[in-house]
């Protein structure tokens, strides 16, 4: 099938993703792209328990994911691909690997140096630079916490420092 959602979400697999997006997209596979988690068996077990209905969960480093990206687009699984930071998605997207593809920004919460875009989305200057790089590589970057929420456009994401 295809990758039905590419999303940056600090919480990775959680209620909004499994229930909010999952109930509309019916994924059969979650692919977590994260260099740290790819080497941490006990944390992988935690995330696997958070998935219901027999979907599989695969953990890949960014490099592994780059090598497998096209086959994930082409195989028979409906895949939700997740990173927990913009930086990992940027590395995944290098050399135009996500050109013409949509990238969704979901939950990124308040932290030092981050300013508010929406209640679920706080971005640092590095995040904004990463978003520009994603867009420059041909990806369509928008933000939305749930499938039925209003979509935040690229201009909104990288424009003003904060809209309060």
């Amino acid at each position, binding site marked *: 099938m295809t990758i039905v959602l590419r999303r940056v979400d600090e*919480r990775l*697999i*959680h*209620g909004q993703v499994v229930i909010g997006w999952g109930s509309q997209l019916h994924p059969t596979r979650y692919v977590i792209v994260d260099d740290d988690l790819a080497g941490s068996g006990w944390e992988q077990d*935690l995330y696997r328990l*958070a*998935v219901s209905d027999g979907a599989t969960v695969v953990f890949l480093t960014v490099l592994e994911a780059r090598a497998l990206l096209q086959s994930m687009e082409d195989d028979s699984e409906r895949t939700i691909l997740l990173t927990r930071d913009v930086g990992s998605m940027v590395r995944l997207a290098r050399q135009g690997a996500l050109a013409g593809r949509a990238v969704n920004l979901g939950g990124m*919460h308040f932290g030092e140096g981050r300013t508010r875009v929406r209640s679920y989305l706080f971005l640092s200057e590095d995040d904004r630079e990463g978003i520009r790089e994603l867009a420059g590589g041909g990806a369509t970057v928008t933000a939305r916490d749930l499938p039925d929420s209003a979509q935040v456009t690229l201009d909104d994401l990288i424009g003003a420092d904060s809209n309060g």
Partner: protein
Amino acid sequence: MSDAVPVRGIVTAHGDMALGMVDAVRQIAGGTEDVLVPVSNVGKSPDALVAEIEAIAGGAPVIVFTDLQAGSCTLAARLSSREHPERAVLCGVNLPMLLDFVFHRDLPLDELVARLLAKGRQGVIAVAGPTAEPR
């Protein structure tokens, strides 16, 4: 009744659910503020949620009650209970479970957990309509 420290409870859930459940328990059963502490996940990063649970839990026996197995609250509770055998995590929290907790906090943690799971499950029942169970 043992000499052990009574178990404390943390309810962590989406939105205002934890606050509402703890408020309901206090209205029905009373109880002091540190017996059962609500924690919402709203606006919190995974690390922040884990840190909040750990700060409340301290080193004493604690049960973390969560709403949804496939959720950030349960994940944070499980992360915070790693290498802490004195912390238990129960998913699918309901009011019968919490009320029973308040009145049986003196039990050893393993006995209390088994009891609360049974109470919670007993509390889910059809009492009217075509599938009502005979009373």
